[in-house]
């Protein structure tokens, strides 16, 4: 999906949902929703702290023709929505000082992304070429400073702050983009 398709999905989900739903998204879909052009992604990563009724969301996804937590992601040909498992989530602990960004507000559905610096830090575990392009975009679009990234990093759960891969990737990002 591209940015236009993503917006259409939000609009269709809003019509299909019957319960008030708040989806917090990250990853490529978050970058698209925040305005990155040209990018495509197949999945919408939903943070587990989002507020939704699973059966309602599952049915809404099915009714608009997108997958919901597919078992075989690698062979999925259709766009899908996936609730990120808690154990794989690398994301700073939210702070009242840096609010989430609302990227869609409908009758039933609100979609938000974590603050841009948190999205950057959330990509430090697995930096692929596409992730670096997302990071370039987020730093430029939100005029992030080195201090913003470091502050966000300081809110990571301690076990991730001590992760050598994440520390090393942080060093590269600070070297390359500031």
């Amino acid at each position, binding site marked *: 999906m591209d940015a236009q398709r993503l917006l259409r999905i939000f609009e269709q989900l809003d019509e299909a949902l019957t319960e008030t739903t708040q989806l917090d998204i990250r990853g490529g879909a978050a970058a698209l929703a925040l305005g990155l052009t*040209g990018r495509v992604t197949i999945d919408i990563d939903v943070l587990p702290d989002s507020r939704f009724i699973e059966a309602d969301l599952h049915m809404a996804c099915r009714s608009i023709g997108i997958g919901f937590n597919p078992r075989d992601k*690698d062979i999925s040909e259709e766009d899908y929505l996936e609730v990120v498992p808690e154990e794989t989530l690398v994301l700073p602990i939210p702070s009242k000082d840096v609010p989430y960004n609302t990227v869609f507000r409908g009758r039933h559905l609100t979609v938000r992304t974590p603050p841009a610096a948190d999205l950057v830090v959330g990509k430090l575990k697995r930096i*692929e070429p596409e992730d670096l392009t997302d990071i370039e975009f987020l730093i430029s679009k939100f005029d992030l400073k080195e201090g913003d990234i470091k502050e966000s990093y300081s809110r990571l759960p301690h076990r991730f702050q001590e992760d050598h891969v994440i520390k090393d990737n942080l060093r590269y990002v600070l070297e390359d*983009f500031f």
Partner: protein
Amino acid sequence: MSRRYSETRENTRRAGWERLVLQFIDDCATGSARDLTYWAQQLAYAPVFVNAFAVWLRENRPDAGQTGKLLAAIELALNGLDALPEVHEIDSSALLRLARRQADALGLRRRMVLKSLSRRLGRDLDGLPMGFVPHRMLRSYPLIGWKPEAELAGVDAGRVN
């Protein structure tokens, strides 16, 4: 089960980017001006390729001969982000296309990334003077997008620059 499948898809995509980077290094080694221009445009304007090279460079060190050629490509890429030239033999639509490519790249702070890569290769290009985009960069080659497999299909079919 789904995790394993997901990693397979990611590994395939990453391998695709790596193949493109190795193609870039091979092409630069030939010294062909056309190849150099093609890859300089990918570094300067394509959305993801420069980052695929950055990822590769973290884990690999090109030899001295390769390094000089790669630095030449990076310098040409930086030149591709300089001012548009006033040339009469090129139509304004070509200049507009180039300007759009520059705007997209500069919006992503591409100069900074290219200079960081050059430092990693042992040369500081911070003092590189700003000038006009070189004439050979005015011919726009197709850019590699977000899907390395699409470009590789072209390479496998005998891409013509």
